[in-house]
C-alpha cells in the first residue's frame, strides 16, 4: 500500500505493509541513520523522531499512523558542516560516548524545548527521563541541553 510521508522536508511515497514500523521504513527504505533500533519496544528512545512537532518512538509506530505527517529525524536538524544549535551544543560539551542514544536525547530535548522554551533545568531533566543512555554520559548530555536551552531562552 502506498503511504505518503514528508521526511526532513522531502515528500516520500513508500509502498509497504501499513503496519510496518516507521523505524523500518526510515532505516531500510530511506537509508536514514539517525533513528536507531534499540529495544524495539518503545522503552529506550533510540528510535525517536519528531512527527508534527511531537517526539514519538518510531519502532512502535505503524507507518500508516503518521501518513501525510511531517517527520524530522536527527539528520534533518543539521549537517556535519552546519549542525543545528542543539547539535553544536552536544559537540561543544563532547556529550556522548558511543552515541547510540544521542538521536533520542537530542530530538526529545528539541521537541520539548520547542514547546517549553523557558523550561527549568529540572523540567528538562524530567523530560529526558525516558531516554536511556547506558554509557552514563547523561550528565554531559544534560549540560549540552541546558546550554542550548539558555540560547533558546535568550
Amino acid at each position, binding site marked *: 500500500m502506498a503511504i505518503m510521508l514528508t521526511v526532513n522536508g522531502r515528500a516520500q511515497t513508500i509502498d509497504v505493509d501499513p503496519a510496518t514500523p516507521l523505524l523500518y521504513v526510515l532505516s531500510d527504505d530511506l537509508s536514514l*541513520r539517525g533513528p*536507531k533500533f534499540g529495544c524495539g519496544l518503545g522503552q529506550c528512545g533510540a528510535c525517536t523522531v519528531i512527527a508534527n512537532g511531537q517526539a514519538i518512538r518510531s519502532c512502535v509506530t505503524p507507518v500508516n499512523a503518521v501518513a501525510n505527517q511531517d517527520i524530522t529525524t536527527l539528520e534533518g536538524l543539521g*549537517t556535519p558542516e552546519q*549542525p543545528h544549535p542543539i547539535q553544536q551544543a552536544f*559537540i561543544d560539551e563532547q556529550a*556522548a*560516548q558511543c552515541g547510540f542514544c544521542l538521536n533520542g536525547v537530542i530530538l526529545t530535548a528539541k521537541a520539548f524545548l520547542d514547546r517549553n522554551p523557558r523550561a527549568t533545568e529540572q523540567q528538562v531533566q524530567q523530560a529526558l527521563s525516558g531516554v536511556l543512555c547506558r554509557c552514563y554520559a547523561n550528565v554531559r548530555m544534560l549540560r549540552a541541553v541546558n546550554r542550548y536551552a539558555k540560547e533558546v531562552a535568550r
Partner: protein
Amino acid sequence: MKPHLTSDARRALANAGFTRRAFLQGSGALIVTFASASISERFGGVLAQGINGAGAARLDSWIAIGSDGVVSAYTGKCDFGQGLYTAQMQLVAEELCVPFNRVRLIQCDTSMTPDQGTTSGQQSHPANFNTTNLALAAATARETLLTLAAARLGAPLATLVAKDGVIAVNDSGQSKRVLYAELVGGRKFEVSLDSNAKRRHPREWTVLGTAVPRVDMREMVTGRFEFVHNVKVPGMLHGAVVRPPSVGATVTSVDEPRFAICPAS
C-alpha cells in the same frame, strides 16, 4: 580482486588521498610491518581469526608515511564509544611528532588492517599504547626517519630533534633541517617493527594527555555516523547477528535457498 571495504574505511582512504593498493605499489612511502617470524609470538591466541583476510596482498602494516608527509595508521582495535579512534590518532601523532590533523587512521577493516582479535575488556590500551603494536610501529617509524635524517644532514643522531614532521639539528636554528616528506621522497622503505624502538617520554608529550575533541562527534550528533548495523557491503541483502545456541558452537551449514527469497535492496 577489489577488497570489500566498509564505507568507513573507504572514506578514510579517500580522505588520505590514496587507495591502499596505490600506497603499497605507489611512488614513495615508509611502511612499518610485522616481522613475519614474530607474528604468532605477538598475537598468540587471537591468530585464530587469521592474519590474512580476503583480498589484500599484505595485511600486516601498521604505519605508512607517504611522500606527502601524511601518516596513515592501521589498527585492529576499534572505537565503539570509548574514544579510541581519536586516542589512537593522538598516539600516532605523538610518537611520530606530527600534528594531529596529519594522521589518518583506518580501523578494523579485516581486508586492510592488522587483525588484533576482539576489542573488549579494556585491552586496547595495553595492546596498542604500551611498547607493542601500534605504539611500537609509530616509534619505529620515528626512529627510522631520524636515522635517515642523520645520514642526510650529516649529523649525529643524538643532536636531532623531530617536531611537526620536521627533523632538525638541535641548536642549528632550523638551518639544518629536513621534512619527513623529503626523507621518504619517491622511495619505498619497508621496515619491521623494532622491539627496541623507544616511546617518547610522557614529559615530552604534546598531543597525548591533552583534551582533543572526538573526531567522530560531529557525525554522531547529526545522524551520519556509521554504526555496525549501518554497514552495507557490496551484494549484501541483509545482515544480522546470529548467536549460537551454546558456547563455542560453530556454523556447520547454511540453508542458502531459504534466503534466496530476500529482495535485493
